[in-house]
């Protein structure tokens, strides 16, 4: 991933957000201890960011919620990437029939928007976080599959891979030396963009009430719970919202950095970046 000022800025933002969260973890109390008499209090020495509607330390809730959102979305993206790439390798290796089947599967899955599928699948697991992860991974892998497949296809034909094959190098070696370096930049960019998108999706689902069970905090769920108190205590809604937005912004910048002056084919995930159709 080439470095430029956008990307440097994004990394700085990410680092500072990370540091902020770690700091919150250190100085804040327990995100679960309630105190109904101390609810909705402004910031004090004891609670640096005040308390939420059940009297819990808001800073601690933010830190833990941020951590949950980040890790969960990272998990989803990682799983989608692995599955997508793995299936792309399968498609390439196993012949025409598997490939057609996988392409059909991709089309079917891509026809469904993530949130709607998460809703439907969420009812399968009773609205818990496992349903959300399954749904997001399920709708997430096709884009990695397509990208990996087109990249691999192009790669397979190149002279040095051909040479390596003819020379009898075992597949894992070929993989390590040639395939991975080629896939990593593009997939890495996709993953960065996807990470941001997944954070948004998880928080939207949390807003609709599907996701982590209480009392585990999640930024989107915190926002929907804080709506009731929006007028008196707007920080309950604004702070998680800003936190989500900053993270997503940083990740978007990281992924897209420097390409805003060029209509990059990466903007269209359907597109084959190597222009070979």
């Amino acid at each position: 991933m080439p470095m430029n000022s956008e990307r440097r800025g994004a990394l700085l933002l990410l680092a500072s957000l990370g540091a902020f969260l770690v700091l919150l973890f250190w100085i804040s109390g327990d995100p679960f201890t309630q105190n109904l008499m101390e609810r909705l209090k402004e910031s004090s020495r004891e609670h640096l960011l005040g308390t939420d509607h059940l009297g819990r330390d808001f800073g601690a809730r933010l830190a833990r919620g941020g951590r949950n959102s980040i890790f969960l979305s990272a998990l989803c993206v990682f799983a989608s990437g692995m599955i997508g790439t793995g299936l792309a390798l399968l498609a390439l290796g196993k012949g025409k029939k598997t490939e057609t089947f996988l392409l059909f599967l991709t089309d079917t899955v891509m026809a469904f928007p993530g949130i709607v599928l998460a809703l439907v699948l969420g009812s399968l697991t009773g609205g818990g976080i496992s349903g959300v992860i399954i749904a997001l991974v399920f709708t997430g892998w096709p884009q990695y599959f397509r990208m990996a497949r087109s990249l691999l296809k192009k790669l397979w034909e190149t002279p040095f891979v051909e040479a390596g094959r003819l020379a009898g190098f075992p597949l894992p070696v070929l993989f390590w030396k040639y395939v991975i370096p080629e896939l990593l930049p593009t997939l890495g960019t996709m993953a960065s963009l996807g990470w941001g998108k997944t954070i948004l999706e998880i928080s939207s689902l949390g807003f609709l009430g599907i996701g982590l069970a209480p009392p585990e905090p999640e930024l989107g769920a915190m926002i929907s719970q804080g709506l009731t108190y929006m007028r008196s205590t707007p920080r309950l809604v604004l702070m998680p919202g800003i936190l989500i937005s900053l993270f997503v912004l940083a990740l978007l910048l990281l992924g897209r950095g420097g390409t805003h002056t060029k209509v990059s084919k990466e903007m269209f995930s359907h597109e084959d970046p190597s222009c070979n159709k």
Partner: protein
Amino acid sequence: MKKKTFLWYVLLFMICLFSAPLTGEIATACRFCSPLAAEAAPARPLVVVSAWEASGMDPTVSGFVFTRMGCLETLFTSDRKGGVEPRLATDWEISEDGCTWIFHLREGVLFHDGTTLTGEAAAASLNRTLSRGSLFKGTPVRDFSGEGLKLVATTETPFSALPAYLLHYSAAISAPTAFDDKGEALDVVGTGFYRMVSFQEGRILDFEAFKEYWGEKASIEKARYFAVPNPETRALLAESGEGDIVVDISSENAARLRQNPDISLFSQSLPRVRLLALNTELPFFSTPKVRHALSLLIDRKAIATALLKNPDAAAGQLFPSVASWHNEDLKPLEFNPSRGRAMLREEGWLPDDKGILMKEGKPLAFEILTYASRPDLPLIAEVLQQSLREEGILVTVRVEKSGMIPECQKDGSLETAFMARNFGFVADPIGTVITDFGPEKGRGGWGAMHWSSSSFDSAVGRYLTTFDPQGQRELQKEMTALLQKELPIIPVAWYDNHVAVSKKVRGIQLDPSEMRPYPEGVTWAE
């Protein structure tokens, strides 16, 4: 054909495809050209905003929308004090064996289509509810028949609560022309002071005053029912003045709207209770003593004050003070953690080095199953979880859809459930009491789990055959005292209904059981 031309044709086709149905939509939308609040007062409808939409026109499913708007009427209605008042029927007689009832209908009542209310029409309507609806299933009601101004109801066994059941919206009387020959609902044709003009998929319903109404006619010519599921949006509609009568306001918003100079906020208790149902087969809930100990650990006053903004909502017993079954003789359930701890200790639950209560090597741990369609339930469940955790009881909360509760009860996996139970769905709580605490084979999955009491069952049986109010009152006291002593379910807090009424509207009288129409007696304040 060149590729480009083809693409343009496709684009044109798509535009036509989308715009054809849309022009219809836009035309409808353009009929209301200015925002409601700006319309001149005489032409302006009275807007009632509620959380529930009408799923179809079938009165057994969405009848509550029509009864609350004064479009459909029942034979009897609530007298606002937990009792029964005549509406379409004036009085009744019961036969010797208690299994035949004769209801006398009011004379000169017209349906919205001009036909007269007769015994036959009423019987047809009620028989439809009997076969298709949920109301009478599980009750001994057998049949309805009618002639002239008499409606006859027969039951298999004596059923003293029948008049109370006839208050339910399912039992509203519709004209025969409202249904087709298969019994599907075609239209809403009732006897009420508002006549339905448009249905619009059940989210926005328009009504017009019925000129031939038998009673006091509506003073506001037009009315509108607006279903808004989101509680915040409802509160905003009250504030902006778009909603004249906004019901189901949350406690938090109610506190804020009370300060609003353009709104009168009415709060009244409902016969609905938030309670924790316990699986008495589990070792920790097997004795009344442990259940009482658990109850002593719950700070109801704090929950009611902080979250519900009403300290009186703390439930001292199962039935709230507005319910007819409220028993003043009972000592209220209290918050006494030290006594609770002592009782648990006596039962063998001792804290280990981490503070978790243990008995014979097993921790005191259970799961609370609750649902999110009433958002206050998961909130209070979280509070319960944390406060019990501080006492060394490991509680997990699981939020699912409400249908999971009877399902998990059936397969035995339910440990505890935190839910809202409505004891006022018919005017006499006996209906819910039977399905929750009565004989086990008649239970619905929402009540006591694996708890039964022969004395309770016999009290229930005697209640159904007792037709005099004094005898009923004594049996009510007996049953409520037993429930308070045994605590198969732990009541936590009662419900309040907050209704925001615009100051532009005058004359509103609210009914705690929500059976009487909201626009009843309402006029513009000029």
